[in-house]
Every structure is written in C-alpha cells, then in structure tokens.
C-alpha cells in the first residue's frame, strides 16, 4: 500500500525544489512559477490528509488554495508588466535599490558569456541590371 507518508515525503521534496528555484532564479516569471509549484506541493499534502481521514475537508482547502493562486497570478503578472515598463527587464536584481538599509549591493562578478555573432546571410539585391560588355550591342527584339 502506498501510505500517507509516501505522499507527504514527495510533497516535501516538491516544495523544496520550488523553494530552491524561488531563492536562486532571477527571472520574475520563473520565480512566480516556482511559487505556484510550492502551492501545488501543499495541495498534495492536504489531499493526502483528506484521503487519510476519509473526509473531504482537505479537498475544500485545496480549492481555496487554487483560488488564492489565481489571485496571486493576476496581481503578480500585472506587477511584472508594470516593472517591465519601468526597467525593460524581468531581472529581479534590477530592483535592488529597494533593499534594506545598510546592505551592500550585490554585484555580478563574472561577465556574461558572449555568443559568437554569426553574420546574417545577405542575398544579392534583386532588380539590378547585369553589366553588359561594352563592345556588344544590345539586342533589339
């Protein structure tokens, strides 16, 4: 039998992965997805407890989690849109100016890798008259 404990352990691991993603990633949209993943892990816990107790109250809790996640999605995406308009970037480190007083600013030591820029292919311009040899008379049709 798969027991309650198996589900709790898997939910804890999923929550941990989401937490690591939220702490380490800098793209606001990825951070938002990691937060949603943590909510899903909590939902697994609640549904597993509902099954264990043989009642439906845990499932009702998960419905409210889904409602709160929908609110969060709406507000968060509106916020990202506003931040993007101001900073033209989704990098959360761009907003380090609102950090706590006395905390030194974090700086990125390593330069970003530069991808080799390949020249875009150029087509020969169309519609140019071919050069005619000087001694040849143009054919008259």
């Amino acid at each position: 039998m798969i027991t309650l404990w198996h589900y709790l352990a898997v939910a804890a691991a999923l929550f941990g992965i989401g937490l690591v993603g939220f702490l380490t990633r800098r793209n606001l949209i990825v951070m938002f997805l990691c937060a949603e993943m943590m909510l899903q892990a909590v939902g697994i816990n609640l549904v597993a407890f509902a099954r264990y107790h043989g009642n439906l109250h845990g499932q009702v809790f998960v419905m409210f989690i889904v409602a709160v996640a929908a609110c969060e999605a709406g507000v968060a995406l509106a916020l990202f849109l506003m931040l993007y308009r101001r900073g033209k970037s989704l990098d959360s480190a761009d907003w380090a100016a609102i950090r706590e007083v006395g905390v030194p600013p974090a700086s990125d030591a390593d330069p970003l890798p530069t991808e080799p820029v390949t020249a875009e292919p150029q087509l020969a311009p169309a519609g140019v008259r071919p050069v005619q040899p000087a001694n040849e008379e143009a054919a008259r049709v």
Partner: protein
Amino acid sequence: MTLFSLTPTQNAAGQIGLAAVLAVVGFALLLPNPKGRRVREGVAALLGSVAVFGAWLYSAYGRPMPDLVGTVLFGLFSAGALGFGTVLVVQKNPARGAIAFAFVILSTCGLFLLLAAPFLVAATIIIYAGAIIVTFLFVLMLSHQDGPSDENDRSREPWLGGLAGFAFTGLVLFTLFLSHEAAAPAEAGDQPRAGQRLPAVVLTDAERQRLTEALAKLDATDDELAGDLTKHREDRIAHFASVRDAVAEVVGSEGAAPGPRYGTLPTRLEKTPALDGKPAVLYREDAQARATLARAAAVRDLNGRAFDTLQNTLLAKNPDAAAAKADYAKLRDEVLLLTGAGQLPARNVGNLGYLLYTDHLLAVELAGTLLLVATIGAIAIAQRKRESAE
C-alpha cells in the same frame, strides 16, 4: 543499509542528509551560471539524490508492493512531478520552464486522482491551463530572445540557496520520520517521544483483511446452502462458524464485556465503553468514528442472529434455507459497508459541492471577494499613468 551498526533513527538521518547534500550539489551545478554549467556531474548528483531518497522511503515506510498498479502509478506521477520541477528550476529559457511547469501540474493531477479527488483534477487542469497560457504570453511578450541576459543566465547564490531549500526539506522529512510510529521503533536509551499522534484510522489494514476474507466466504452462501440440507450438516455449520468468528474478531460477539471477545475495532476506538446507559467515550470524537462504531454494533447483532437462525434451520427436520439466506445476504451487505468505513469514495464530487455550500459557505464568499479584489488590484497596478503615456 546498516553499514556502521547505526540505530534506525541515525540511519534515516544519514540517508536524508546524504540525499539533501547530493541535491544541493546537483542543483548548484545545474543552475544557470555565466561560467557555464556542468550538466553531466549535476545530473549524476541529482540521480544519486533520488536513489538515496527512494531507498529511505523504501526502508522507512515499507515496501509498497502488494498494490502493483497503484505503486507504479504513484512512482510515475511523483517522479514526473519532481523531474519536471527540477527542469523548471534549472532551465534557462523561461518558455521551456513554463512547459515543464505544465507537466508538473499534470503529474500532481495524477497524484490527486490516486488520492480520490477527481473534481480537483478537473479544476486544476482548467485553471492552470489558462494560467500557463497567460504566463506563456507574458514570456513571449517580455523576454529578450537575443543572446544571454542577466535574468536567465545568472543565478542568485546557487550554493547557499540550494543549501537553504534542501536543509529545510531534509528537516521536514526527518520530522516526518520521527512522527511515524511504525518507522521509528523503540531504541535502547530512547526517550519516550512527546507530541500528539495522528488520530487512529477507524479500520486498520489487518481488520479490513479479516473482513474481506469473511466477505469471500459470505459470497459463497448460496453454494453452501444448496442441495439437500439434511446432508453435510457439520461441514455447513463449520463454514458459517468460521464466518462468524472472523467477523466477531473485528466487531466482537454479542453480549461480550470488554476483553478478548470484545472485538479489535471497539477496543481500539473506545476509551471507556458504554456502561449503565452512559455513552462510550471515544479516542476520536467525530461523526466518522461514531458511525463506524454504530455500524460495527449492527454487524455484531446481525452476525450472532444469522448464525443462530442458520443453526436452527439446519437442525430442523424439514429445513428451509430461505430465512437463513435472507439473513446472510443482509449480513454480507453490512459487512461490505463496514469494510469500506473510513475510505473516501472515488465518486465524491457531489459531496464536495454539498460540503462547500454548507460547512464552508462563508469561506466561499470570502474567496469570491478575494478574487474580486485581486481583479481590481491587477487592473489598478497595470494601468498606465496618464503622465507617462504622454
């Protein structure tokens, strides 16, 4: 796994710690880094972490083999959720991350389905399908696709972040281990553990097994009572006596005082039995435990009565099996219902709706208000100011 003759608790702590350390190493190597990622080493560390985690689950909570289909599905869905979650975290491209998130949602929906929550599966898929598509639109609208960028190709403190996350997970798992009574046997010099246990289940697996065996025998009632009833009396009575004893082992026999014949189910659930008209005091004071005990009492009465009827029928001169058959058909139905006590039925969508609009009506209203406020908030935040527009 007892290389160093450790106690089970130390062994579990070692396994969880090793899994957490390997996961930290794997994530730190795989997270986006301007110096380049080390994919092969990172994946190897993560696979090692998953192997140790699985070994711990196996050794701590037993081998879940009897239910093969359920075990395979559970393994598939949980591996899918954890694997695609890892891809979401370490993937540089946010669009691919959103696709991985969609698979995380599908995997958790599979787990919901295994846990008898069909409505939540449908609701989650519908809501997150919309959410993921909107997120996708945002990614396409806002992210730069030209070359490396700060937000996608850098991580914030991969080692410290991984350590924080997985230290937390390891502690949660270790607490789970300590709170599980079967997995943490008494050890020499071990202090009795303080804390509150989970309420007991109304029907244990062993009891359910006994009742299922009795059910199999009850299903053969018609065969046992076929033919000339004046023959094979002893065999027939022995068959029904075995049914009576199997059921009585769980629910007790009629008129029994607290003791060995009282039945394992009432003994486990009742703190003090009903005496002199006073109701019993239960370990679990909820409707489910009360209903299970009432059903067990009904089964107990019916069990004794049906056997008496059968014995009288078989010992009569002109036996007529109709009354005994009717009693045993009723007993079979009651035992079947008792066997399902404490189990969540898979078809529970209607009950969920009933519960939402009776017990949780205020919460439903509050959730609706919250959604309205969030909508207004989203519009207010995203609105372009007139000065900036001009």
